[in-house]
């Protein structure tokens, strides 16, 4: 039951009209009231004039998953009235701009309709199309302030911060806010039963999106070269990296940069740039999405076989092909696992939220250099582009980059002769050198057949020796990758396995089910290849339900192949329509599967 500090609301507008700012303001205000909140943007793949939505969930217990239907719908777009009204929960509220009539057909008996003539009021109050359009957003914000009891001081504080140097804008915003606020106060019983009350649950937290957090991770890891080609939803990762570098990496006096970002001509080039920079010894990365991954695959095979460290971020969106660029999915897992022709296998990391984006981004460079191979960090649009409530990000100043086996000039002085692909101990990792460091470190890098000495070869045994070692190296890496998140309860025989952004909804669903007397174990993979802990989890449960966001059960496939578990012990719960999992959907899904199993 929705109630105080526990409800969902959704705002339907048209993109390019300024609503995103207003929605951000709204969410931030709730956050500053100390109440756990999360917001999700559902936007079209164009720039102006199409329907867009913003979903806010307020939850005192800190659950962050999507939770449709919605308790309060703010329907500002006549073009989507029908759809929006249908999504209101029984007993919920509809706030609409009564300057445009709500068609009779859409009236519902089981909801409360609140009409506010926002458009009209703004036309009366403001001059010019531009200001009228913009201020309407602030006006509905004002209405919400009144209806759900947002702390007016907090909101005003934010407006002051924002417009400290633009008095006239402050005035308009203030005026607009009051328009909506006063109207609802006057016409409706405020606040509604779904309303806010200050808490102190967000003090240790921040609101950040995954792309910003990942970019910050790259900065802290000491990445110096970034190559990219713009693509939704990965674009803001590099934009953020650039912004942080401008802040932290530009010499105050000389204004010189100690980083180099290359906007490449396409993703093939971006991948090549990262490989070139990694070969030189820089920490280099490229953020992209599905189509970019496809285009990068030739270079990924080269980096794998020539053993060049490189970091790839795949902010997944709905595929295949161009698919739905502004919708989310986890459907690149299987292609990346064996990306590029020939025998390959790649390391993958799977952050579940922006916080993990930060830490895993930082880790990814250590891992890439340690194992001298491409590392993929797979987040998705939901994580990458939405603001999530996370714990404050921390850094340990004692942490130093793990560069792996890199021979320095003194190291090279000491040895007789350097051979690039000659691994001397069991980990399968051969020492490398960086160009220009020392004459003895010279070697020839190639994607064609080579032997362990680094020489060109077409000899079967010499070829096999190298690719066998690489296979060993990759498999051995499993135990050094981020460990899975595991929650078990004694005696459980059924486990749930999930990945990435599905975490929030799964965790909440498991809590709910447990409250209802159904206890299930939980594992979330955070890396591929899977470590022993994953194998053990799978082996020690009679049945696991694999919850992931793609059509083809890709994680399940990798689990079967890697752990050797029989497929009939892994059930699938899938969502791939482009929106994040909702908690209810998972609860229903799990119940359905378990009933099927029993039957």
């Amino acid at each position, binding site marked *: 039951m929705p109630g105080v500090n526990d409800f969902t609301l959704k705002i339907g507008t048209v993109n390019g*009209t300024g609503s995103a*700012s207003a929605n951000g303001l709204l969410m931030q205000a709730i956050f500053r009231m100390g109440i756990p909140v999360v917001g999700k943007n559902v936007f079209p793949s164009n720039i102006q004039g199409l329907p867009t939505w913003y979903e806010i969930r307020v939850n005192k217990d800190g659950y962050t998953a999507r939770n449709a239907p919605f308790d309060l719908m703010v329907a500002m777009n006549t073009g989507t009235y029908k759809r929006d009204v249908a999504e209101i929960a029984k007993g919920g509220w509809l706030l609409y701009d009564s300057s445009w009539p709500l068609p009779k057909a859409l009236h519902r008996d089981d909801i409360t309709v609140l009409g506010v003539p926002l458009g009209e009021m703004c036309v009366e109050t403001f001059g010019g199309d531009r200001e009228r359009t913009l201020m309407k957003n602030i006006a509905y914000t004002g209405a919400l302030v009144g209806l759900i009891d947002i702390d007016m001081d907090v909101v005003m504080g934010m407006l002051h911060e924002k417009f400290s140097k633009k008095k006239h804008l402050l005035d308009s915003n203030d005026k607009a806010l009051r328009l909506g606020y006063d109207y609802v106060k006057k016409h409706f019983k405020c606040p509604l039963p779904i309303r806010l009350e200050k808490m102190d649950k967000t003090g240790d937290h921040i609101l950040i999106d995954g792309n910003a957090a990942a970019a910050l991770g790259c900065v802290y890891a000491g990445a110096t070269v970034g190559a990219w080609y713009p693509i939704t939803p990965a674009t803001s990762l590099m934009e953020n990296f650039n912004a942080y570098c401008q802040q932290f990496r530009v010499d105050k006096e000389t204004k010189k940069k100690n980083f180099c970002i290359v906007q490449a*001509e396409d993703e093939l080039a971006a991948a090549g740039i990262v490989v070139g920079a990694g070969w030189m010894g820089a920490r280099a990365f490229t953020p992209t999405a599905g189509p970019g991954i496809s285009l990068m695959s030739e270079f990924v095979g080269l980096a794998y076989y020539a053993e060049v460290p490189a970091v790839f971020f795949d902010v997944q969106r709905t595929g295949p092909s161009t698919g739905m660029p502004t919708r989310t999915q986890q459907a690149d897992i299987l292609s990346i696992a064996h990306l590029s022709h020939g025998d390959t296998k790649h390391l993958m990391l799977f952050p579940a939220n922006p916080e993990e984006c930060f830490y895993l981004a930082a880790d990814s460079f250590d891992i890439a250099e340690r194992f001298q191979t491409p590392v993929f960090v797979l987040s998705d649009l939901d994580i990458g582009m939405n603001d999530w409530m996370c714990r404050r990000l921390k850094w340990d100043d004692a942490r130093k980059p793990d560069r792996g086996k890199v021979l320095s000039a003194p190291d090279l002085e000491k040895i007789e002769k350097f051979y690039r692909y000659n691994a001397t101990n069991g980990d399968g990792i051969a020492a490398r050198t960086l160009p220009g460091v020392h004459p003895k470190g010279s070697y020839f890098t190639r994607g064609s057949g080579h032997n362990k000495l680094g020489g060109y070869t077409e000899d079967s045994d010499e070829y096999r020796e190298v690719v066998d070692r690489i296979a060993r190296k990759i498999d051995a890496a499993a135990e050094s990758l981020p460990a899975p998140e595991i929650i078990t309860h004694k005696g459980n025989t059924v486990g749930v396995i999930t990945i990435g952004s599905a975490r929030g909804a799964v965790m909440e669903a498991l809590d709910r089910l447990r409250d209802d007397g159904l206890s299930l174990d939980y594992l979330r993979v955070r890396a591929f290849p899977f470590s022993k802990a994953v194998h053990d989890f799978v082996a020690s449960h009679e049945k696991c339900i694999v919850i992931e966001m793609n059509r083809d059960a890709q994680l399940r496939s990798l689990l079967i192949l890697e752990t050797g578990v029989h497929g009939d012990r892994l059930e699938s719960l899938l969502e791939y329509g482009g929106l994040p999992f909702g908690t209810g959907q998972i609860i229903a899904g799990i119940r359905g599967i378990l009933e099927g199993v029993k039957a």
Partner: protein
Amino acid sequence: MTSITKPKVQHPANLKNQIGRTRRDYEGSMSTLCAGCGHDSITAAFVDAFWQLDIQPHRVAKLSGIGCSSKTTAYFINESHGFNSVHGRMPAVATGANAANSGLYYVGVSGDGDSLSIGLGQMCHAIRRNVRMLYVLENNGVYGLTKGQFSASADVGSKSKKGEANIQSPIDPVLLALTLGATFVARSFSGDKAQLVPLLKAGLRHGGFALIDVISPCVTFNDHDSSTKSYLYTRQHYHEVASVDFVPLQREIRTDYAEGQRQPVMMHDGSMVHFRKLEANYDPTDRAAAIARVRSAQERGEVVTGLLYINESGMDMHAINNTVETPLVDLPYSTLCPGAAKLDALMEEYR
């Protein structure tokens, strides 16, 4: 508030052309571009050009990559075949389509990101093969759809770039095409329908690859740091929360000026572009002169517009290949399969 529904492209009259079709028959779905986007103006010119040429709608194949510009193939001639392919690779799809069926009209619509960054190699090779198609490059100097990164044609249509060209020189598709031996090269401006429509018609009739570079301002991301009227400025000083949130409703920029004249046009960000229309007696058959003309205009800070070069005697891909006249897709299987007897005979050569 409502969805921003823009009227379908409107035309003066419901006149019928020679094949009994009205302009309406050449319209497409409603545009989802920003109000005032130059690309929409080009779409309107397309409608006129096809209508005027009395082309059967379903005999038109429209191809594009990915981008705001590439979306526009959906906004004209509903009753034709459109293919919104992948980013930067439309030239290959068009090449294959044309190889298969030489009988249709081919129109490629692309952007400067689509053609000059990711698709540069493909565009150059389509030119080299002389694939018969009208290739319209809707050039706004930015990546519109991914929200405003600079493209390789950089600051096209702007005087505010102050010497930046010397730092990272923009790629000029017109000079490139002239260098690569293209047989039809023109430049125009989205707002100059009087010039654009005839150029589109000429391009559609050309016997090879016809490139028209159309300066087509992006109303949303056409900004330069230095311009106080720009969107960038507005964004930085007004809305920090979401990066592309408010897009003011703009009006399309139009112009109309005489041949040989210089015409300054103000862009949405307040910068000026100085167009210079080729004079009526300009001779478009001299490639070297065309190159020199474009370069000298650039040095004067002008963008020269019009049909810069044409050579109707070039051989297109099929002429080079010596393909039969009948489109390959129309050949009956019986003429394609050599049959059992010939295979049996051939087998003797493998003994």
